[in-house]
């Protein structure tokens, strides 16, 4: 039986520590994410969204319940990472300061069993750079600290263009960039999705961003997914008490927020 589910979680738990110190970072979550879907996982700090992201990357295993990628448990990391990749929030801390950025983009090929020829790798890096609107000559021989924040964020995206994964986990990809630059980053992400027919999972605390980019939104709170649905369902007719509270607490320009 072939389903088009990318991720399937049934009563998945991910816990740390033991005894009295047991922390259920992800607590009994059930969901599925379909192929080519854009899903945002929204929640405050410590809600478990980052742990869930790491489960999707295979960096954490479920302590209980089922957690499947394409209907199979995640076993071989290297095989998994050929298809599932990530971008992180702080682009500066993502790259090694001691090596030129271009070499690090090329290092991404390390995930393949059979690396393409050097010439092909160089070509693919060039294409990826052009795809995020950076001339290869601009970053030639440059080290990460010589580039601006916006450029670095695009380098992370270029890495994804190089790897062409099936699934992208984007962990707060815009929280460190200026608001004005954010839309650019989102444009590139959407372009990636169109070109590669990717599935994207956004991890974010910003419901505005989630509302704008996603097909579906999961709201997480204390390790549980308390609400899932389309952006309009979640924001217009939330069912969970906490979601209602959360939406009310977010200051919005056009809505009365606090009585002065």
């Amino acid at each position, binding site marked *: 039986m072939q389903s088009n589910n990318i991720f399937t979680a049934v009563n998945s738990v991910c816990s740390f520590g033991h005894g009295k110190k047991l922390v259920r970072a992800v607590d009994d979550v059930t969901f599925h994410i379909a192929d080519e879907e854009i899903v945002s996982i929204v929640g405050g700090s410590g809600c478990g969204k980052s742990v869930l992201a790491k489960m999707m990357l295979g960096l954490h295993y479920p302590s209980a319940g089922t957690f499947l990628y394409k209907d199979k448990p995640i076993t071989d990391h290297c095989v998994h990472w050929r298809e599932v990749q990530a971008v992180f929030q702080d682009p500066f801390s993502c790259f*090694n*300061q001691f090596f030129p950025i271009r070499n690090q983009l090329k290092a991404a090929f390390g995930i393949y069993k059979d690396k393409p020829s050097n010439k092909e790798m160089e070509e693919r890096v060039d294409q990826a750079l052009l795809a995020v609107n950076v001339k290869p000559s601009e970053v030639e021989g440059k080290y990460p600290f010589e580039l601006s924040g916006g450029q670095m964020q695009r380098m992370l995206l270029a890495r994804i263009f190089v790897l062409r994964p099936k699934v992208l986990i984007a962990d707060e990809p815009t929280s460190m960039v200026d608001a004005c630059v954010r839309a650019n980053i989102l444009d590139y992400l959407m372009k990636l999705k169109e070109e590669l027919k990717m599935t994207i999972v956004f991890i974010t605390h910003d419901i505005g961003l989630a509302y704008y980019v996603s097909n579906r939104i999961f709201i997480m709170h204390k390790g549980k997914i308390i609400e899932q649905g389309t952006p309009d369902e979640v924001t217009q007719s939330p069912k969970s008490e906490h979601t209602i509270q959360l939406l009310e607490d977010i200051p919005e320009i056009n809505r009365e927020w606090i009585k002065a």
Partner: protein
Amino acid sequence: MKILKNLLKSPMFIIGAGLFFGTLLIALIGPIVYNMTMDRVGAQYAAPGGGYLLGLDDLGRDYVSLLLSGLRSSLYVGFLAGIIATTIGTLIGIYGGFRGGLVDDLLNMMTNLFVVIPQLVILILISASLQEGRSLTLIGVIIGLTGWTWSARAVRAQASALKSKDHISLAKLNGDNTLRVLLVHILPYIFSYVFMVFIIQVASGILSESAISMIGLGPLDTVSLGTILNQAKNTGALGDGVWWAFMPATATITVIVFALYLLNTSMDGVFNPRLRK
């Protein structure tokens, strides 16, 4: 390059490097330029002068020759102990800090255990049990083997802080194996730190050797700065006011250690911005 430029701006670094390379140079070319002899050349504790710049020891040996030889021994022991201690400390620290979990807990426990047991005690116990065959090299090795603990602690803290950095996660997503992650993505970040640890380990190796020699457990196969001092103490040179028996050796040890401390402190100032004005 920029780092070197900034280092050269620091007077502490210049003085430290000058003193250190100065002594190193003396140790290296001294024996070539100076006609060294370990034979009796005059009366016991003959005062400086008459061709013997720093006088003679209780066996009538030339102090300049003894000092040159002692300086070479001390530097050798310091570097040997420093290299061993830094290597062990770095390997344990970097691996434990990076791995985390049970391996780290065990390594950390072992380190903490040996941190509190005084190194001098272990040195004395081993040295005392090795009656013959207590060579300079062996002493250096023992100092290195017992002195790695704090460098392991220091490196572990650094590696552990790096472990959760995004570039490590990304390296994993690139398929890098643990060895490559350690060598390429962690070591360069803590290299300057490890180097500073090394400098301090060399200094502490020199100090440890002189301490152990001072109590009469020094090398039997050669002269070191510590054995010169031990001899001076044992023969009562101190009480007789024979300054040339211990002053030059004292000054030599202090100058090397001071130079190493200066190097370390000035590097700390450049690598650790908080310490700068």
